[in-house]
């Protein structure tokens, strides 16, 4: 029983990190109708950036976020400007291929620079743990949880309490109407893509600290993230948060109760069962007919 409770706590802590990565993905989808398949490799790229800073410049990985988050924000805006903006027709389908191509290029570059050997981020607090209510929790998970809460709160404030957030939500609801009332939809899209990718940098740091990774890890990661946003309802921020916690708690409990090899399968199977009853996801709305 204690093991299960510990798994649930761990699931909630790691779930917050997945919430960070998947909210970037769902935000991009909501505003731009684009499924960013490159999100997985961008998370890994963020992890490798932290790794480089830590190994060669001896910058602490949490401090390093001050560098990696802006770097990936700019990279995200660059990708949007260079590729996404050029897609004129059939956005959803073509964007999947374009982002997949971007992912392949980045994967190739990472393999080329860092080789395919697994690495893991190092910091003094990664292996240490603190007792909380009788459970030993690794520091890094606690840090990650607070980091995610802070960043998600900032995201919430940005989306729901600022003028930019107003423009963003307007573009989410109706692109044409938003541009008619004077919203610079293209600008909003570029910044949104940047924010979505910047969230991957933070997620990547924590992911790299808690898992050994190489470029190919991104496939497993992106499939989990995609499943999370489908489960939550595509384009719904709250859905993505909720689904992240559900997924990680379920897979961590499966780890303990059954076996680690089945944890992903159980989650994927859950998705399929859900789709039989609610094709629009947990918190998603049924898509109206678009003209």
């Amino acid at each position, binding site marked *: 029983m204690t093991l299960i409770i510990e798994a649930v706590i761990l699931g909630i802590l790691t779930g917050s990190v997945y919430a960070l990565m998947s909210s970037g993905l769902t935000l991009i989808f909501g505003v731009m109708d684009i499924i960013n398949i490159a999100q997985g490799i961008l998370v890994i790229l963020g992890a490798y950036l932290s790794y480089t800073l830590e190994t060669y410049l001896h910058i602490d990985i949490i401090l390093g976020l001050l560098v990696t988050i802006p770097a990936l924000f700019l990279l995200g805006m660059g990708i949007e400007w260079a590729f996404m903006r050029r*897609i004129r027709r059939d956005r959803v389908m073509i964007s*999947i291929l374009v982002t997949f*191509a971007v992912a392949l*290029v980045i994967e190739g570059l990472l393999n080329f620079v860092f080789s395919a050997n697994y690495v893991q981020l190092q910091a003094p607090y990664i292996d240490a743990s603190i007792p909380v209510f009788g459970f030993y929790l690794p520091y890094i998970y606690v840090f990650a949880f607070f980091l995610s809460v802070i960043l998600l709160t900032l995201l919430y404030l940005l989306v729901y309490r600022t003028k930019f957030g107003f423009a963003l939500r307007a573009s989410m609801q109706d692109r044409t109407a938003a541009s008619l009332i004077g919203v610079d939809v293209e600008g909003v899209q570029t910044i949104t893509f940047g924010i979505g990718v910047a969230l991957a940098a933070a997620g990547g740091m924590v992911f790299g600290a808690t898992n050994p990774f190489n470029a190919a890890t991104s496939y497993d990661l992106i499939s989990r993230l995609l499943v999370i*946003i*489908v489960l939550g309802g595509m384009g719904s921020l709250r859905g993505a948060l909720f689904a992240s916690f559900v997924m990680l708690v379920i897979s961590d409990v499966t780890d303990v109760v059954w076996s680690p090899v089945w944890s992903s399968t159980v989650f994927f199977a859950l998705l399929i069962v859900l789709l039989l009853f609610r094709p629009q996801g947990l918190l998603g709305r049924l898509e109206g007919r678009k003209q």
Partner: protein
Amino acid sequence: MKKFRTLGLLALLALLLAFPLLFPDPAVTTIAVFTLLYAGAATAWNLFSGYTGYVSLGHAVFYGVGGYALALLCQDWHIQGGYVPLLLLPLVGLIASVFAIPLGWIALRARRHVFVVVTIAMFYIFQLLAYNLPGITSGSQGVFFPNPPWDAAFFNTPFYYTSLIVLLLSIGASWWVRNSKYGLGLLAIRDDEDRALSLGVKTGAFKLVAYVISAFFVGMVGALVGYFVGSLYPVFAFTPVFDITVALMAFLGGIATLAGPLVGALLLAPLQQYLTVQLGIVGLDLILFGALLLAVILLLPEGIVPTVRKRWVKCTASRSATSPVTGARGKEKALLIEGRRGGKG
């Protein structure tokens, strides 16, 4: 014109039939076998994804199921290497189709973008199952195919002709679908699914049937690749690279056209084989492949075949137009095209 086309097609078929005799070098025929197989897979993928507009990135499920089905059938029935496994291919295709029925039924409950994600999830489930059910699939150790008793010089020839047959069958299926009332229904689904439904197209059944037909051919391709290579591991059987390669071939050539996937496969499959064999530098093949994919999608968003066809129509139209004004009109048109390009870039 029509006679011309028939003659051209016959010449092409003759060339394909004579290819192993003209180029007996095993290195060349190996590339040819992979090209034919990928052309078959891309045509089958296009039959579903191209005509209905539902992009599936989970066809690797059927590719892998086909491979595992053939390997396990050979193991359980104690079949020796040789021609018999090739004769089992239709059965393997059927097995893949049987898998496609429930998978398609579930995935096609979702509309377009959710469908894509569900297909991705599906092939991950199958990859994980292949790892986690070692009793059936022997897990990460992989399965092995019986060794055909052919010598090195002859080895590729049976594979070449079998691949050619599979390719021709899938082209035939694709042609039939494109020119039937059924295919018209699929295209209607692609253009406007709700309207098609309200006009009486049984959209659910139509999509599912196309999915199952497509799985039949992809399953056979998977089995042939496995038998040709000799072994099969979960990572290579259920690989995202297969899906993206096949989708890229269809997009490069021109999605939802009959010839598009063929043209795409003819250009890309040899390139991919060459890149993986020749380039020793890790990652370079991925960079080149990804960059090429980007260039194609952004510069030729419609694909080669529709673009060329459009140019051809324009060319013949301007030639048949009255000649005295051609100069001015041609210039105007060139300016127009230039302007459009400037706007796009």
